[in-house]
């Protein structure tokens, strides 16, 4: 218990005031905390190792140029081609349709919540949006496949050619899914815009719409972009909706939204649940596509984190 470094003097008073006594509980706790915190580092490393090993194996047999530029993806066929573009195009297509739905709805809701809604109605309205985020994606997939698809096919002129699984319906469902993401982050950004900017604009006789569209939205633009980027990342990484309602086969690049096609995630989910033997080239395609997906979403997330940080720095 005694502090060894004390040089003379009456020990009692010095012992308690100078150096901290060794505290075994506190030290043990700290070790435990560091161990818990390193779990997340281990997770990232684990993901990279799990992806890299089979992916490297894959690229030993298929050239990376063919993989990135090939327009035919037929690992299951006799005539095998390993061009990832069909999967990539399907992924981007669903993403664009989802954004067309989610950006106006999410941004509109966010502006309404932040600039128009009374505090009391905001208390009721925001949870509704959050409930929408709580719906499991398998449910969205089922509703898209079994309800939205027949509805559009039978009642909207020009959509009679909708296939059983198709990009349009999957994209719409995904758009609804990411509305809460877009809305809640852009609302945060708009709420962070200082009140003085609004008051300045009102003093110059601006109307409420002018304040919202010409002051608040431009001031919050980096947060709004971050919200959209995060929405894109969600859409690119979402699996169940596209597996159920979007389609499982992408042999060639087919940008027709009325047709079905496999996105990167749908391909992974479809192959990995089957009985593809471990270690084969077919099996390794899952990891090669997974690596592309991981890098893609990683870049989007990094961009989004950076944008969010920017709006926090400016106003907080």
């Amino acid at each position, binding site marked *: 218990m005694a502090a060894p470094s004390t040089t003379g003097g009456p020990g009692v008073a010095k012992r308690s005031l100078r150096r901290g006594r060794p505290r075994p509980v*506190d030290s043990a706790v700290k070790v435990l*905390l*560091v*161990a*818990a*915190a390193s*779990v*997340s580092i281990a*997770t990232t490393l*684990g*993901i990279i*190792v*799990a992806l890299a*090993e089979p992916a490297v194996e894959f690229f030993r047999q298929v050239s990376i140029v063919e993989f990135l530029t090939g327009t035919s993806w037929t690992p299951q066929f006799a005539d095998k081609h390993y061009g990832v573009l069909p999967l990539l195009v399907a992924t981007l297509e669903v993403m664009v349709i989802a954004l067309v739905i989610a950006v*106006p*709805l999410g941004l*509109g*809701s966010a*502006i*309404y919540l932040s*600039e128009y809604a009374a505090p009391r109605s905001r*208390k009721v*309205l925001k949870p509704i*949006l*959050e409930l929408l985020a*709580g*719906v*499991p*994606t*398998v*449910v969205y*997939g*089922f*509703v898209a*496949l*079994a309800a939205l698809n027949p509805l559009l096919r039978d009642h909207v002129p020009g959509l009679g050619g909708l296939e059983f699984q198709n990009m349009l319906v999957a994209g719409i469902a995904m758009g*609804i899914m990411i509305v809460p993401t877009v809305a809640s982050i852009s609302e945060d950004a708009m709420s962070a815009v200082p*009140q003085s900017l*609004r008051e300045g604009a*009102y003093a110059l006789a601006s109307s*409420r719409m002018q304040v919202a*569209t010409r002051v608040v939205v431009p001031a919050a633009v980096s947060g709004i972009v971050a919200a959209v980027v*995060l929405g894109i990342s969600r859409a690119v*990484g979402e*699996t*169940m909706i596209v597996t*159920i309602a979007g389609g499982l086969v992408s042999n060639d690049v087919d940008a027709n939204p009325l047709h079905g096609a496999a996105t990167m*995630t749908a391909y*992974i989910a479809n192959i*990995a*649940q089957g009985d593809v033997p471990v270690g084969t080239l077919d099996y390794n395609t*899952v*990891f090669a596509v*997974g690596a592309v*997906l991981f890098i893609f*979403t*990683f870049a*989007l*997330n990094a961009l989004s*984190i950076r944008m969010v940080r920017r709006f926090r720095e400016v106003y907080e």
Partner: protein
Amino acid sequence: MTASSPTLDRTGTAEQGLALTRRRFRVGEVLFKLALQACFVLCFAVLAALLAWVVVKGWHRLDSRLWTGMPTGRVSRIDRAGVQSAITGTLWVISLTALICLPTGVLSAIYLEEYANRERWYNRMLELNIQNLAGVPSIIFGILGLGIVARQLGLGFSIITAAIVLSLLVLPVVIIATREAIRAVPQSIRQASYALGATKWQTVSRQVLPAAVPGIATGSILALSRAIGEAAPLIMLGAVTYVTFNPDGLLSAYTVLPIQIFSFISEAQSEYQELAAAAIVLLLAIVLLMNSLAIFLRSRFQKRW
């Protein structure tokens, strides 16, 4: 944020009033507000329509068969089929997930908020890493489970593999929510505790954590509700089969509700679609109740210091 004060309307005289005090009727303004409200109404309508459609679709199967029957792949036995094994599987997997991810998440958050020196590069990296993990697609966690947990660690396609993977998937949610809750506890409470001679850990465990409980609970419930509804990683981890028995241990084969729903959807017959809808009603009831509880806890118990 009041744009114009309505009290002025009544005090101005008629002539001045028109020009200065009366709020002019602007078509653009009104249309803009209506459009914004329409966004909200549309979101609400979608949620309501989705719930109504699922309930109607699954109405005939919403009875005790749902939890007394086992799933079956044979359409001749579909009348007696239910999702009992998926319900017990979900209970097993989620209980284990809670046991693994809540302590890990809360301890990580305590480290980051109370102990970590933010000047150090490794702590900054840790923070960035957690933010990034929060955005990694769930199917990638399935790849992690397949390559590392199931094969390298040799746990196979079992309940414990599923629980570990779901824990890692929702860990960032728990950490981020707990950090916010801890950060909201004012510094003065810590200083008072130190002034009374408490050690760092005594301060954290007896003052900071109790004060942060509502926030931690909200985040934890949201995280677990997400784990309950998550299907993508488990698709890769052997859950897509018709399991006709309840799990009996950590290494048991299993299925969970969202995966069972996915299997039913993949069958062509309409009986399966009805059963899927009924199971979805059950899943939605669980998930939406948990979400509502979390939102309620947050609004009810959140202290404003």
